[in-house]
């Protein structure tokens, strides 16, 4: 994948995350911050499908953006074909793992498993 495409994704995920995290924070604030963190409230939020979808999208956006940022930092610390390939693969794998684990939590909560 060309670097310019990766950067486009990086910029797009950042912009989208800013907008969606703002929505997320606004919902928390309008509900009352302390109240919104109570157990019943959190469970209710996960079971509300549009909000669960919002959390899932934020999870994907921040994972892709964050792990690509980490990849860029690591590429600047050291160079070498094998090192760069290992860093790229490790960051992709870490992003997939975080998205998978987070998605599992969101889906289980949404389906009422907890």
């Amino acid at each position, binding site marked *: 994948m*060309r*670097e*310019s495409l*990766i*950067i*486009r994704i990086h910029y797009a995920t950042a912009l989208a995350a800013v907008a969606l995290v703002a929505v997320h924070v606004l919902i928390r604030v309008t509900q009352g911050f302390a109240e919104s963190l109570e157990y019943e409230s959190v469970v209710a939020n996960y079971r509300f499908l549009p909000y669960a979808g919002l959390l899932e999208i934020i999870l994907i956006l921040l994972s892709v953006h964050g792990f690509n940022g980490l990849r*860029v930092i690591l*590429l*600047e*610390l050291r*160079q070498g074909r094998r090192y*760069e390939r290992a860093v790229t693969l490790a960051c992709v794998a870490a992003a997939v793992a975080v998205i998978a684990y987070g998605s599992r939590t969101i889906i289980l909560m949404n389906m009422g498993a907890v």
Partner: protein
Amino acid sequence: MAAVAPPTDGARRSVTLRIRRSNPAAGQGPSYSEFTVGAEPWTTVLDAILEAKRGHDHSVGVRYSCRQATCGSCGMMVNGRPRLACFTKLSELGDGAVTVEPMQNFPVVRDLVVGFDRLFRSHHSIRPYIVSGEADIAPGTRETPQSPEEVERYIQFAGCIKCGLCNSACPTMATDTQFIGPQSLAQAYRYVADTRDRGKDERLRIIDDSHGIWRCHYAGSCSKVCPKGVDPAMGIQLLKGHMLGFR
């Protein structure tokens, strides 16, 4: 005809010049040599180094040629900042000792002389010339006309003298040994912005690398140190615009 002595207002003073000495090929680590040299208001750092060579230690290694900020040979760290020695007067550096060191982000050959292989390789990689099938002058052809506005787009970047000060000031160059560098990126923009050139797509492909244009953090230090008024940081941002399809 008698030589005319330069005017003097009695402002001649003595300046302590500290020169970082090293010879990596001979295994000689860095040390500093101190020289006391005379300085008139117009004395440049290069003048002072050459006086130290002439009057104290002829073995000081320094590269220079034109003495008028045109050849780009005498780049070095002067009091911690990349500058051209021939373009920096001692009088603009304050009253303290003047410390000169080889440029950062370049391998030291000896004393103040650094190797330019990486800069020249990067510069060469972006094809720093007009790519055009119509470039050759043949009977019946004429030069390619450009409007003043078209020239304005790239002319400041054509002032680059390849002195390497921008690369020396760049923080990414310090950590990423494969980063193409602000000098080459600015030159890539210089040709991309030229209406006579047809090599834009290839140049953009060359710099679209994991150690290419996207590793620029936009610190802007390259533009601050350029002795010719070139603004590599701006060129890099304009080039990013081309790559993202905004231009």
